[in-house]
């Protein structure tokens, strides 16, 4: 999706970092195995988080296997295998979200800019169809979210209305993982605010670019920046701080729900993501302006 949901590397134990890397590589393998070589380009930190959450909510047997990297046969890689379908499901989600993203780009961009998406779409739609057959629930929720997003943005909705579809998507996906009802409530709430956080982070990240391109961004009307093309340093700073506050309020609610989850296995890694990784992204994007746009496929080594 966006790649914001990732751990803060320097606060991970070395053991946890190795585990995270091995899980990341295993998800890449699952993508390759189930949806073909090209689908490994859809690999993201977000879907890795989804897989780790699934693996932490129920007992699963994990085993480490040494092998070669899927993309580069010269590189050695560890793979953290598990029984059950966690990786397969996360791979399906990754494919489905990318498919909807491509369709979205196609509708938004002009002919030349969308040429790449246009060429990839038939292939992606074939894979997405297979993923949808295997996981109809994921496909249905992803489609609902994309339609909701389109409607909310077309209606020029506020920050909350625009964040709702992504938030509801993760809420529904996480709720489905619950083993008991009360836990489902906490998972849904956690997913809701994580999705909301991701959407707001992305909107805050794109704010300057959207202003320049006269594209829709919910923060533009929220912060009263209509009609502006560029922001002075002071305006930029004020906008970043306002966005940061909205993100903090969301994170505060997320932490409350997260604290109620019973996590085994990767619990500490997930806690690192929620308590340290997300704030770090806010810092990097809003205060350090490390705007490395997600052009290339991220590697676990890229974690800061």
């Amino acid at each position, binding site marked *: 999706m966006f790649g914001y949901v990732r751990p803060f590397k320097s606060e991970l134990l070395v053991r946890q970092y190795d585990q995270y890397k091995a899980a990341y590589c295993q998800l890449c393998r699952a993508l390759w195995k189930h949806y073909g070589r090209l689908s490994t380009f859809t690999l993201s930190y977000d879907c890795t988080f989804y897989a780790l959450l699934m693996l932490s909510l129920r007992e699963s047997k994990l085993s480490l296997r040494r092998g070669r990297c899927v993309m580069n046969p010269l590189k050695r890689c560890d793979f953290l295998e598990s029984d059950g379908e966690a990786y397969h499901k996360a791979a399906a989600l990754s494919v489905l979200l990318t498919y909807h993203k491509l369709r979205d780009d196609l509708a938004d961009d002009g002919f030349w800019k969308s040429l790449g998406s246009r060429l990839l779409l038939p292939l992606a739609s074939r894979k997405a169809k297979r993923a949808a057959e295997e996981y109809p629930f994921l496909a249905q929720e992803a489609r609902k979210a994309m339609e909701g997003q389109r409607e909310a943005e077309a209606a020029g909705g506020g920050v909350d209305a625009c964040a709702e579809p992504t938030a509801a998507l993760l809420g529904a996906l996480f709720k489905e993982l619950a083993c008991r009802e009360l836990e489902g*409530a906490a998972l849904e*709430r956690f997913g809701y605010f994580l999705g909301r956080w991701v959407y707001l982070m992305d909107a805050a990240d794109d704010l300057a670019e959207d202003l320049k391109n006269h594209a829709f961004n919910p923060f533009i009307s929220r912060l009263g920046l209509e009609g502006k093309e560029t922001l002075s340093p002071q305006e930029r700073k004020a906008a970043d*701080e306002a966005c940061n506050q*909205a993100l903090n309020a969301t994170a505060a609610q997320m932490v409350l*729900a997260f604290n*109620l989850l019973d996590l085994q296995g990767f619990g500490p890694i997930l806690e690192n993501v*929620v308590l340290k990784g997300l704030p770090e992204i806010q*810092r990097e994007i809003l205060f350090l302006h490390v705007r490395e746009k997600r052009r290339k496929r991220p590697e676990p080594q890229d974690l800061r």
Partner: protein
Amino acid sequence: MTDPYKVLGVSPSATDEEVKDAYRALAKKYHPDQYADSPLKDLADEKMKEINEAYDTITAQRKAGGNRGYTGAYNNVGRSGSSGFNDVRSLIMSGRIADAEQILNGVPPERRNAEWYFLKGSVLYRRGWLEEAKDHFSRACQMDPGNPEYSAALNQAMNQGSGFYGGYRPNANMNAGSCNSCDVCSSLICADCCCECMGGDLIPCC
């Protein structure tokens, strides 16, 4: 019943002090006050009960005095004597957010007073629409500046944007400790200046 030591996350060989610390940390984490406005209140209460029981069992086993856990929680939306929206208030208190919102939306614009904005804000807050909730709370405070209920709600909504409860705080140093060598030096120099003002001296050489 599950192993009380496992619930608190300590080993059975832990000292009384360690058990107490673990209990305190968990009690802080699950404290019902934090969840007063959250639909997860039941789950938080359940967790709180679990750790209270575990702690009570351990202390009883060790015969090391009694314990009182946190009981009771306040809820931001309570009964209010002169309320025009008692039905909405009780719906919110029982967690029926959608019904409460429907009634609120049916109120014609000219009858929307400060309380309406407060209750609508509470509904939005529970749904996770934090930004609009904040707007509604501040509108309620503008219309009725003296009302403690409204200003408490606005304060809470504003505080959570500070990054203290989650997210990033620009003014706090996350990577190093809160006190680095630079802080120590500047504080000492500052203290020295203060002493000199009053006729004393802390650092004789400057």
